[in-house]
């Protein structure tokens, strides 16, 4: 059958480069090859070649047919984590030379498990990216309202820059207090620095924080600008090399890079730091796309991988954005698709607490080394996957499509000696107990996440994907009362699908402080609104400049305006899409306030609205979106409830809740739209396993999405 490759999604990891090639029917192939850090394009093309062999075709044949390509990778993140970036110099306010080194106290325990967060002995500050010896102070001070309290001592700039140059810095970052309120001083320093650099005949980039992240919180802003200079900007060359190389192979599009705000950006984008964290958000972006297509506004996304369980909510068709996330143990000021994570996955280690004789899960995990059942992995502590194998839930001969051979007897022996015997249980009981514990942890977590945000599971459709998700879906949704539960047949490749489904989108943020009291006169409202409009105009300009680099005209860009608002004096603001296309008059202010209070009511409660406090606009945001080719969501005619015989693989004994049951095994790919599968059934596909335990039933709809239903 002739294929029409459509979308190329690349996930370049530290050791392996995965490529996903999606055709116009939503089918995809996955290719793998060793990463080649010295020239990533080599590994990428090898990986694409590997993928296309499954379709009996070649890069030369398929690349010209591709409509789009999206890159996401950990190469940049690795550069940061392994501290192999540029030698960066930092210029800050005189007297504050130590603030980057001191960091925020949260940085001493970011990424830790809950118990370690409480255990102070484990806390530790990483060495700063810019050492104190490469930091210089320049006298100036601006207060929090943006008034100049001490003018910039321009004569101090030149010696500071010269000293840094003498020490051989490869980039200079400038970050001053309150610069987002008054950018002139940072820009002046930037210009002087550029003159000095030019005079010395060197070529060193200068990064003023206001040109990148004009937002509040100097530690976040400084960290982010430093990362831009240290790790992200040096990666630009790599990305452009990949772009050139895929074009030489016949591609006709510009490669885009997945960015933390949930859109994709060009390799020429001003701010590249936000492409550092893009891996896990692909699935959420894909869920939003699927939701838009199917008309589902509220989706709870859940993904189980080897190491963690990730949950994200899409509410009214919108992702929620975290504007000060963290990465590599640094607090940052980047917009990141908000996601909650616990360290419980298929690879999580299972241990017995020696003091209380109870089963504990994680937080550490075997990751890609699976568990004791995978001899080559060299793991000797029981993992959740070992329990799957003991129970018969996963087929040891068909793990990752048979790529890895698992040894059930090793898993059995390990569960027996490490878990079952110390607890006085049979091996099956112990393994079932582990799975039961895992699923109830996931269920509690999922429920508390949704309730904690002021919503209820009954308002959401739960979407489950990832390699390990469908194995536990029934367990973690049991009794929560979701409106519906969906498992796409392409669950394992859903993150890549999501990367392919991301918009070509730039998003820029700016901090504002516009206070308007309750019952303010019209002039005050208009004044505040005008300032908001000035910020929007500035951001629209910034977005337009970015698209211009790819030759996209302003009139073809869909600009969407957002604002952040809170009641005066409260601590948390809300991000809301503006109900107006530009600010003109008093009524526009009222429209903004109404939109805010509507959202506030939804998130908190009607009774909590506090107009008497007055309002603060704390930020302006502009998103610019351009239409790009996206993967097609499959649509096939419904056939009937009875699954075809060739999809039936036989029966397997599976231990479930106290006894062995005979489960029907089906091949997921061969099931047809309309088919209904009754429990007890296991649907297998090369990269995922979908379990329909007693008490559940599922049917496959015309979009090749399974609906999992609880039988009352």
């Amino acid at each position, binding site marked *: 059958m002739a294929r029409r490759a459509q979308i190329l999604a690349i996930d370049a990891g530290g050791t392996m480069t995965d490529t996903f090639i999606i055709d116009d029917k939503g089918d995809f192939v996955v290719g793998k090859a060793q990463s080649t850090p010295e020239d990533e394009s080599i590994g990428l093309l090898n990986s694409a070649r590997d993928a296309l062999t499954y379709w009996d075709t070649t890069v030369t044949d398929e690349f010209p047919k591709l409509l789009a390509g999206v890159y996401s990778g950990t190469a940049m993140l690795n550069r940061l984590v392994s501290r192999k970036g540029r030698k960066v110099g930092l210029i800050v306010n005189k007297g504050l030379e130590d603030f980057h080194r001191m960091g925020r106290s949260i940085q001493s325990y970011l990424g830790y*498990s809950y118990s*370690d967060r409480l*255990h102070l002995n484990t806390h530790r500050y990483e060495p700063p990216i810019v050492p104190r010896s490469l930091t210089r102070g320049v006298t100036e001070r601006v207060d929090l309202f943006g008034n100049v309290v001490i003018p910039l001592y321009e004569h101090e700039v030149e010696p500071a820059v010269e000293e840094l140059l003498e020490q051989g810095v490869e980039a200079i970052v400038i970050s001053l207090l309150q610069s987002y309120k008054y950018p002139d001083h940072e820009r002046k320093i930037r210009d002087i620095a550029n003159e000095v650099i030019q005079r010395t005949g060197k070529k060193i980039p200068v990064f003023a924080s206001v040109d990148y992240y004009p937002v509040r919180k100097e530690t976040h802003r400084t960290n982010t600008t430093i990362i831009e200079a240290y790790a992200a900007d040096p990666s630009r060359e790599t990305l452009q090399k990949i772009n050139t190389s895929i074009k030489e192979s016949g591609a006709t599009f510009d490669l885009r890079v997945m960015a933390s705000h949930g859109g994709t950006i060009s390799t020429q984008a001003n701010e590249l730091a936000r492409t550092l964290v893009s891996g896990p958000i692909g699935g959420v972006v894909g869920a939003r796309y699927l939701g838009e297509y199917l008309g589902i506004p509220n989706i709870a996304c859940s993904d189980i991988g080897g190491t963690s369980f990730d949950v994200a909510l899409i509410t009214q068709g919108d992702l929620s954005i975290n504007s000060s996330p963290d990465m590599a143990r640094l607090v940052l000021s980047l917009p990141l698709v908000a996601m909650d994570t616990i360290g419980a996955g298929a690879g999580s280690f299972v*241990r017995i607490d*020696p003091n209380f004789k109870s089963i504990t899960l994680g937080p550490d995990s075997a990751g890609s080394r699976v568990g004791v059942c995978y001899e080559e992995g060299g793991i000797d502590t029981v993992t959740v996957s070992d329990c799957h194998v003991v129970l018969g839930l996963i087929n040891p001969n068909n793990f990752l499509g048979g790529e890895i051979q698992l040894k059930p007897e090793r898993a059995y022996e390990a569960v027996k000696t490490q878990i079952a015997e110390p607890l006085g249980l049979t091996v099956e009981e112990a393994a079932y107990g582990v799975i039961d514990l895992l699923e109830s942890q996931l269920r509690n977590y999922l429920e508390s996440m949704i309730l904690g945000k002021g919503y209820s599971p009954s308002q959401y459709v739960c979407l489950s994907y990832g390699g390990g998700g469908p194995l536990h879906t029934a367990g973690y949704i049991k009794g929560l009362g979701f409106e519906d539960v969906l498992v796409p047949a392409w669950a394992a490749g859903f993150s890549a699908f999501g990367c392919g489904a991301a918009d070509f989108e730039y998003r820029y943020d700016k901090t504002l402080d516009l206070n308007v009291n309750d019952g303010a006169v019209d002039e005050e409202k208009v004044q505040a609104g005008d300032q908001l409009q000035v910020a929007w105009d500035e951001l629209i300009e910034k977005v337009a400049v970015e698209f211009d680099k790819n030759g996209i005209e302003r009139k073809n860009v869909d600009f969407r305006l957002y604002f952040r608002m809170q009641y005066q004096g409260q601590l948390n603001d809300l991000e809301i899409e503006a109900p107006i296309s530009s600010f003109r008059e008093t009524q526009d202010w009222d429209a903004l306030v109404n939109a805010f209070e509507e959202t506030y009511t939804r998130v908190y409660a009607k009774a909590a609205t506090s107009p008497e406090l007055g309002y603060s606009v704390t930020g302006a945001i502009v998103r610019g979106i351009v239409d790009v080719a996206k993967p097609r969501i499959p649509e096939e005619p419904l056939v009937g409830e009875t699954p075809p015989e060739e999809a039936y693989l036989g029966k397997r004994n599976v231990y479930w809740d106290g006894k062995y049951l005979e489960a029907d095994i089906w091949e997921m790919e061969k099931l047809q739209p309309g088919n209904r599968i009754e429990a007890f059934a296991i649907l297998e596909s090369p990269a995922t396993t979908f379990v329909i335990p007693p008490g559940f039933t599922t049917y496959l709809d015309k979009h090749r999405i399974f609906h999992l239903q609880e039988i009352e």
Partner: protein
Amino acid sequence: MAEYDRRTIEELVDGTIDFYKLKDMLSNFKDKNRFETYLSILQERVPWSDPILLPVGLHLYIVQKQDGSRIVKCDCGHEFCDEKDNWKLHSMIHVRDTEEKMSEIYPKLLAPDPQWQVIREYYCPSCATQLEVEAVTPWYPIIKDFEPDIDTFYNEWLQRPLPIGE
């Protein structure tokens, strides 16, 4: 269950252990043989042969004497007192209670006011090793820091015989 080799525990005692290794140990359940290994490393490093029952400070140990008594003993072999007694009262004590004495260790104006707070330093009378430092109000009594129930610890927690029976 975690298990560590002797070398790792030695690094732990010396404080030369790599942080990430230490973090893993801190985050994990304690290994069953830790106390035994730890004690044997301490024992190996002291020049005397009385069996150590428990460390009570950086250079101090409660040891078992042949005659059945348990006493507090320093690295150097200096024997302080019975473990029921407060070893601090048998040590050399240097109290920094004037501005002048404070200025020996603090920059000007950064020291506490000696009317409010004094610094008490405890030294071994034989080897002059600093054993303990306290920052306390001037009237504060000399407290015994630690009153271990060695018998219960060995019999019920460790379930391990004491070097010499009761």
